[in-house]
């Protein structure tokens, strides 16, 4: 297939879609499926069949539309009208939608989502621009929306160097959390002398409460593949790997299909789009290890080994997979490549703040009205995310903190709600951008308990290679456990802080280095809660039960317990 074929394919598909008077887009992402999406889709299809409207009305199974807590979500597209969203659709509503809305033009009022909902209005869809609009399992759908044209353009009109320059000028930074300039990384790999190079997409999205990458892979797999292929062209690699978290079988399956479809059409594989560039992509399925999100551990895992990080330097850009220069980017980063090539670096750099360009996808969850997946421009305030898009805290409760960055991040208190969300600002607050999990907490969350939760996570996920992380996380966890069970002393608090700094500075990889962040940030903003737990043995949020006593109190406590047991 060449560029002209691609355009023909797009045209044919667009015409085909235009023949339908009405298209019913039905979300087939994991959250919607978990709340009954498959039955809804079946009901839509049955209803159409029964009313013999298959020629006018089409049902499309799409990726995520965003408002996951309101799932299953169905979008109705009628030609010449704005899209209409339905929430919490049941099979009954589905039939009604077909009968009233699709066929009679009368929207079903009760499950209607207002289209001017701030949830949608405040978002800027760049990476997710296809998500929820196309069938992720059909290459034609992607091509109809301009898919693979960016790759074709890059291959024909740009040198690899120019691609790297374009990406650099866009100001795109790594979406995995650390925010390393993507263009710089590409250029490093491009310049690295080697006859063999690799491109790796990191889809090992391990942060609990984050599912941006999964959604992107499930909803628009070709965009990731196209981004990787452009990267392969830019750095001179012929082989790519997508490392998909083992917990994401749907994403793996859709990617696998997408790769096959693209290979069949000559969009991947040898001689891509009839050029001299060849690029194969293979999938590697993770097996459940958070540390594999770290790039050196990820490479070890791709090579079938224990996912233990190795010291850098050498960096993967110098010596990565099998000793060859390797470009590793997050899946979401690759999702940004196509729009940059498509619209130009200038356009992209126009979105966001001075140092953080473009948009960021967040998985908004926790104690907030609208949970789901959102894409917002960098520089938006936390307040806008939590109160406008998120719709505020349910049950009239108080906002207490927003947790970003998962176990490597921190908790941001109410006084910083007007902070602009970008890499630097979040770091200055003691948190990180992270991969994009954003958990809202209300006054029912106890901060030492939150810190304990994350420390337990890090303790379980520590690979065991370096001492500070392997043992330090256990010691920090035990201190936090004592704080939350009422047996801690003030000396414990001092030891905890010392351990935090030591583990942060001496650990081998990012997991250990950032493991103390949740503790440090909660200590910074909610120190009084720690002190209440220790000195008064009280938990304001009512989470901790304080069933233990400090060791000296065992003198009275122990005989009492023994008598009670006897």
């Amino acid at each position, binding site marked *: 297939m060449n560029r002209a074929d691609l355009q023909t394919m797009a045209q044919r598909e667009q015409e085909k879609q235009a023949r339908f008077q009405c298209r019913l887009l039905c979300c087939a992402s994991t959250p919607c499926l978990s709340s009954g999406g498959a039955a809804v889709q079946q009901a839509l299809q049955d209803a159409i069949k029964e009313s013999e409207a298959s020629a006018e009305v089409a049902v499309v199974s799409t990726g995520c539309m965003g408002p996951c807590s309101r799932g299953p979500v169905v979008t109705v597209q009628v030609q010449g009208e704005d899209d209409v969203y339905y929430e919490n659709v049941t099979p009954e509503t589905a039939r009604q939608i077909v009968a009233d809305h699709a066929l009679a033009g009368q929207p079903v009022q009760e499950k209607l989502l207002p289209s001017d909902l701030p949830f949608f209005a405040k978002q800027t869809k760049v990476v997710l621009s296809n998500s929820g609009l196309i069938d992720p399992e059909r290459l034609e759908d992607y091509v109809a929306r301009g898919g693979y044209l960016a790759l074709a353009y890059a291959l024909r009109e740009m040198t690899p160097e120019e691609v790297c320059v374009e990406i650099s000028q866009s100001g795109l930074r790594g979406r995995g959390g650390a925010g390393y300039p993507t263009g710089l990384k590409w250029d490093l790999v491009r310049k690295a002398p080697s006859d063999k190079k690799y491109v790796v997409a990191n889809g090992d999205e391990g942060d609990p409460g984050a599912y941006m990458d999964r959604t992107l892979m499930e909803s628009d797999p070709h965009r990731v593949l196209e981004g990787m292929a452009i990267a392969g062209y830019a750095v001179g690699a012929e082989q790519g790997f997508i490392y998909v978290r083992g917990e994401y079988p749907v994403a793996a399956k859709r990617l696998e299909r997408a790769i096959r479809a693209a290979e069949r059409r000559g969009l991947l594989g040898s001689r891509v789009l009839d050029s001299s560039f060849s690029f194969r992509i293979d999938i590697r399925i993770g097996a459940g290890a958070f540390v594999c999100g770290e790039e050196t551990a990820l490479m070890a895992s791709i090579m079938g080994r224990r996912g233990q990080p190795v010291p850098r330097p050498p960096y993967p850009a110098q010596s990565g997979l099998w000793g060859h220069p390797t470009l590793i980017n997050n899946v979401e980063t690759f999702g940004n490549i196509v729009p940059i090539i498509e619209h130009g670096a200038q356009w992209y750099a126009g979105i966001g703040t001075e140092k953080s360009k473009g948009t960021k996808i967040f998985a908004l969850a926790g104690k907030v009205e609208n949970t789901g997946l959102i894409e917002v421009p960098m520089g938006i305030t936390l307040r806008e995310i939590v109160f406008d898009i998120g719709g505020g805290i349910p049950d009239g409760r108080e906002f207490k903190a927003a947790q970003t960055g998962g176990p490597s991040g921190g908790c941001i208190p109410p006084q910083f709600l007007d902070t602009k969300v970008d890499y630097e600002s979040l770091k200055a607050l003691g948190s990180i951008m992270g991969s994009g999990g954003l958990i809202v907490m209300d006054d029912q969350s106890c901060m030492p308990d939150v810190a304990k939760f994350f420390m337990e996570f890090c303790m379980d996920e520590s690979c065991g290679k370096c001492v500070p992380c392997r043992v330090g996380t256990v010691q920090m966890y035990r201190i936090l456990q*004592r704080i939350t069970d009422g*047996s*801690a*002393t003030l*000396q*414990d608090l001092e*030891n905890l802080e010392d351990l935090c700094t030591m583990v942060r500075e001496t650990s081998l990889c990012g997991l250990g280095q950032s493991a103390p962040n949740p503790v440090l940030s909660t200590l910074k903003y909610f120190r009084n809660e720690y002190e209440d737990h220790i000195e008064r043995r009280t938990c304001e949020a009512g989470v901790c039960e304080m069933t233990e006593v*400090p*060791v*000296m109190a*065992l*003198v009275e406590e*122990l*005989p009492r317990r*023994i*008598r009670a047991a*006897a």
Partner: protein
Amino acid sequence: MTQSKSENPKKTAGGKKGQGSTQKVRLATVWLGGCSGCHMSFLDLDERLIDLAAAVDLVYSPIADVKTFPEDVDVVLVEGAVANVDHLELAEQLRERSKIVVSFGDCAVTGNVTSLRNKIPVDDLLTKVYHEGPGAVPRGGETDKVVPALIPRVLPLHQVIPVDAFIPGCPPDPERIWTAVSALLAGEPVVLEDRMRKFG
């Protein structure tokens, strides 16, 4: 749980009384959960004991017949780990009544052999030793005040009360003890050279 206050004790025994004061240093030694080996090693100071006797009043010790821990002690050497509620009580008392508390020997410093039982839950331990072993006794004895209740885990002294100086060793050899004790008597901080800090 850890309560050690100072890494390098500033507090000194001789300090307050001043050099040349005729008043002797009030020294105590305590035996918690240990084998008394540290005390044996202490006695191995041999002829230095005579110098020591001239400089201190031994106000409380397993080798002296004193029932209660006295007030106003200058230095107390504590042998053994904290293993039961009696140890806890005594530890609290000696901390309140002494200026300088010294963890004396590996059991006090690390828990050592005494803490080997920590991997076994207390209930299982008691059952195994007292209820299933030879001459088994019925359960319930441990509630009696006469037998002090075992705390869930044996702890080194500094995890119970703040400790000012540490003399590791199992047992600490007389040289170490003398280095530490003479420093304390001279009103100086205890500084042991490398080899003298060796555990075991």
